[in-house]
């Protein structure tokens, strides 16, 4: 049993890390883009918002018949998780960049920073604590959601929970639920720490 919990926990961490990693790679540039183009950005944000309203179990189910990305297994679970993790990261990137004091931006432009330099040296560093907060939310929510991914054969700690439910075995349910809760708390603590460290000056 212990071996199984450790294996499932490892799998769980991997699924969430891949999903959140992909969301960071997609979400930060998308958030920057949304911050630059007010109208198109608004539409994109509403679209990502709409995905959040789909009940997670339904989204997992809906992805199964989709060609290429669908099917039964871990990769479908990861794609669904990416769709959910995207929103907090995109939204916080957007909020972080929009939240930079306009006087600071004005000074940067007036000193001759190019658009790229302004983004890299001023906007992103100042937005970073907010962006990391988005990553933290995406991770914590993702760890919880990933348990449901077991319903479509995604693996991870949800496997134990689903098995426990079908066998009416509360020990088995807890064997999945407690490590998942612990992981979420741990991720929250670590990323909160990173977030605070990033606030400079």
């Amino acid at each position, binding site marked *: 049993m212990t071996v199984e919990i450790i294996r499932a926990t490892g799998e769980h961490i991997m699924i969430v890390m891949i999903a959140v990693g992909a969301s960071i790679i997609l979400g930060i540039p998308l958030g920057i883009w949304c911050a630059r183009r007010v109208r198109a950005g608004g539409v994109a944000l509403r679209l990502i918002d709409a995905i959040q309203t789909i009940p997670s179990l339904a989204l997992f189910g809906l992805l199964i018949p989709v060609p290429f990305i669908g099917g039964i297994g871990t990769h479908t679970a990861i794609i669904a998780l990416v769709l959910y993790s995207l929103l907090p990261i995109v939204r916080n990137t957007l909020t972080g960049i929009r939240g930079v004091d306009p006087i600071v931006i004005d000074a940067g432009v007036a000193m001759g920073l190019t658009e790229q330099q302004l983004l890299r040296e001023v906007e992103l560093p100042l937005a970073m604590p907010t962006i990391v907060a988005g990553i933290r939310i995406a991770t914590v929510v993702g760890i919880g959601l990933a348990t449901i991914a077991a319903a479509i054969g995604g693996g991870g700690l949800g496997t134990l929970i689903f098995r426990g439910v079908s066998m009416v075995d509360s020990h088995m349910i807890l064997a999945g639920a407690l490590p998942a809760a612990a992981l979420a708390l741990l991720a929250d603590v670590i990323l909160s720490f990173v977030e605070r460290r990033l606030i*400079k000056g």
Partner: protein
Amino acid sequence: MAAAVELRNVSVGSILHDINLRIPAGEAVAFIGRSGAGKTTTLRLVNGLVRPTSGEVFVDGAALSATDLITLRRRTGYIIQGSGLFPHRTVYENVATVPHLLQWNEDETRAAAEQILAKLELPLEKFGPRYPRSLSGGEQQRVGIARAMVARPLLLLCDEPFGALDPIVRRDLQDAFRELRSGVTIIFVTHDLPEALRIAERIVLFDGGRVVVDCPSSEFTRQPLPLVQRFVSAASLAV
């Protein structure tokens, strides 16, 4: 190496109407006027932060529409109210911004930063490693001046830089600023007439997006225009 500035028939939407100004190299000009008169917009035309809807702006004879604005801005100091310091950078890193953009080497940058900060009574070893948030408003504004002037700009644009400071600090900074101003063309936006008279040798008064008075500082108070007299009487109450 100061730069001359010229505005030829410049209009900006409904904000500025047909502005014509010639500022010779090395002159210090104050733009005064009430809020919304167009002085800040005119200032921002000079480094291309605002584009004219018609007319043309020239810096050192070159039309801005055909100039690389990034290069121009790196040679143009810009000092604003609230200083606009980068909050995530130390005082030294802030002051070193333009030298780094111009790819000066570290020794040169450090020497220039040390020199300008010393003139503003901010010793580098004490203030260099500090973050802007730990400084007083007056100190932040001094760092803002140092950051704008460290790379020896041809042109200095100032938008009410001392507006938010208490009168004593304000007076100190005006004095410090006057000591630094040689060899550079200055445009200084303020709504404070005594400040304009202290800093500039020429005064341009804006009203409703137009230039209504353009004269040497020494002659300004003698202008018969009612708006001038209102500025004068407001100022004499304040002094």
